[in-house]
């Protein structure tokens, strides 16, 4: 408790507080621009940290992290292009809501769900980070492999349209994840002697190509250049009633737990949790057919889960010194810059700083929430911009974002390549989500599988003999077979009638 009081005193110093607020806002803006993210802001801040005090450095860095995750839903809702991988699933219902004139409602849900996810997850992290981190250590490569497999099959099983096309899409994603040096022996694969591919395919390029370039090209080709209408009467106020919360209570709790769990697993992140939570929400809901048509529970699920990953990702970072996702790698770098040793002894050796980090997340989330609620009425005015100005600018921003992610023209050409792939997949009615998820998880699946085999001296049955791993594998198998069996049962029943 004393540590938190000390942290509060540190945070209440005007410089720390103002800089934290400014960084949270900048992170929010970066998160909202397709192609940029809070991680970029943290990268830019890292060199500055050398000259600043530890407290001020972390006030700025952590606030940028929180703002970046919170802001990424804005572009997903308003223009259907995710600010980052953590908001991919938000596009599926957020943008259709905007198209139906419900942009204000979708934004209110996004703002509230983001706040709830971050605030609740950090409260959990404050109370039991040590205990939760111990669970993460108990899981081995066998469980991580099975979990990743389950994540992919769950999303494939729930994707609209043909399950075979969904699985085909997932295997293409798996192939794309194989490009570059493999994570176990660093053997180069499918690089065609191009050094730009040695490190694998950049996630930003895939995201920008599949969403931004594909969307602009197909909407223009189909002559669909109408901007969605905004219902001005709903712009003011908070935008949500108590009924919205009670109706979605179960969905919020489940999505929160998914986000927290995925977040605290080292190497996983919000890019995965939002898709799994979306799939789970669809499975649990009485009207799964409404998902993808602008259905509110879809936005609740994705935004609660991806923000719950903030607290989740900080747990292994603080307690074990293991990054929960790509952005926490940067935060760990900042700790090293400041001469701190992240790991099991960090909280005991630096109780004030650990408390300060948790408190910054909480206060930043509150400040971002208040600011977004107060400024929410102006967000939809983005949709008043004519199509050609808005989407023309987005094209340039996305290609610039791809270049800045690696400072190489090759990334720009990759965006174009993935844009073409997105158009082809759209023409073949093939879902892109399974490909995206298996691309994100492909490297992890492979390295966990190979590590599991290696640790068990080549015995692959270990994946089935460890109980938690077996449960995940059974869920994975059922996720694929389940919809097919259900379809057959329904067919047989209707034939009898």
């Amino acid at each position, binding site marked *: 408790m004393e540590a938190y009081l000390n942290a509060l005193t540190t945070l209440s110093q005007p410089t720390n507080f103002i800089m934290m607020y400014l960084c949270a806002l900048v992170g929010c803006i970066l998160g909202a621009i397709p192609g940029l993210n809070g991680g970029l802001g943290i990268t830019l801040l890292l060199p500055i940290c050398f000259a600043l005090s530890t407290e001020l450095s972390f006030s700025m860095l952590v606030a940028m992290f929180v703002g970046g995750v919170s802001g990424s839903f804005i572009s997903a809702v308003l223009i259907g292009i995710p600010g980052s991988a953590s908001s991919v699933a938000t596009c599926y219902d957020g943008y259709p809501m905007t198209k139906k004139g419900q942009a204000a409602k979708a934004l209110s849900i996004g703002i509230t769900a983001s706040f709830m996810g971050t605030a609740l997850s950090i409260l959990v992290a404050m109370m039991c980070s040590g205990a939760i981190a111990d669970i993460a250590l108990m899981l081995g490569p066998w469980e991580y492999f099975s979990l990743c497999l389950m994540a992919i099959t769950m999303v494939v099983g729930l994707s609209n349209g043909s399950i075979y096309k969904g699985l*085909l899409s997932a295997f293409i994603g798996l192939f794309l994840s194989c490009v570059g040096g493999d994570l176990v022996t660093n*053997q180069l694969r499918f690089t065609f002697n191009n050094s730009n591919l040695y490190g694998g395919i950049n996630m930003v390029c895939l995201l920008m190509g599949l969403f931004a370039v594909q969307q602009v090209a197909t909407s223009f*080709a189909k*002559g669909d250049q109408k901007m969605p209408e905004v219902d001005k009467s709903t712009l003011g106020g908070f935008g949500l009633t108590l009924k919205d919360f009670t109706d979605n209570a179960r969905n919020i709790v489940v999505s929160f737990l998914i986000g927290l769990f995925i977040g605290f697993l080292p190497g996983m992140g919000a890019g995965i949790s939002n898709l799994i939570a979306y799939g789970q929400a669809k499975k649990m809901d009485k009207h799964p057919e409404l998902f993808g048509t602008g259905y509110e529970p879809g936005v609740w699920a994705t935004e609660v889960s991806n923000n719950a990953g903030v607290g989740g990702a900080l747990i292994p970072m603080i307690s074990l010194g293991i990054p929960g996702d790509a952005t926490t790698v940067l935060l760990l770098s900042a700790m090293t810059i400041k001469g701190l040793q992240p790991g099991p002894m960090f909280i005991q050796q630096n109780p004030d700083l650990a408390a300060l980090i948790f408190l910054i997340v909480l206060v930043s989330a509150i400040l971002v929430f208040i600011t977004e609620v107060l400024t929410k009425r102006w967000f939809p005015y983005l949709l008043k911009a004519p199509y050609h100005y808005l989407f023309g600018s987005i094209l340039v921003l996305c290609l610039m974002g791809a270049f800045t992610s690696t400072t190489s023209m090759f990334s720009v050409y990759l965006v174009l390549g993935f844009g073409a792939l997105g*158009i082809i997949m759209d023409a*073949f009615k093939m879902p892109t989500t399974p490909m995206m998820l298996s691309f994100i998880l492909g490297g992890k699946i492979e390295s966990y599988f190979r590590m599991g085999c290696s640790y068990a001296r080549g015995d692959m049955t270990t994946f089935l003999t460890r109980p938690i791993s077996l449960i995940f594998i059974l869920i994975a198998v059922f996720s694929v077979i389940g919809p097919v069996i259900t379809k057959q049962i329904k067919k047989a029943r209707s034939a009898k009638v």
Partner: protein
Amino acid sequence: MKKMNRTYLMGTLALLLAAFIAWQTTMIPERMVSNEPGPKLFPFISAGGIAVFAVLSMIFDGPKDDGKPYLDKAGWIRMLIIIVEVLFFCFMMNFIGFWIAAMMCLFLFFWTLKGDKKINIPFAVILAIGLASICYFGFTRGFHIPLPSGTLWKSVGIKMP
């Protein structure tokens, strides 16, 4: 004109992709690490998965394909125009640098994407110049993140701001 079944086309392309992946996988040198499957396993799994589900999709989804064209002729022309313009932007970004290329191509994108609508040319020009300049100087001067400065200027010895 006979309608094209897009699922069969997709399946055929996917089978070709699977064959290519499998062929390329055979060329990956194997490093001997005991008790682990090696770097070829997952590429082979992905090739196998693509082939299997391409065939299953052709069998089960193929007959359901309505054969409707994805785009009409005018749609394909519009698609081609925007793709060529984006390619042009990428080429120009490398050749004359991001700043000038972005100014030119932003205006080009505004002009193309407007379709049949009227456009306020002075406003579009100012917006293109303003946005390109904010992005370029914001990143290169503000954040110290480099953007392409153009191979042309380098070759003639001119230093871009």
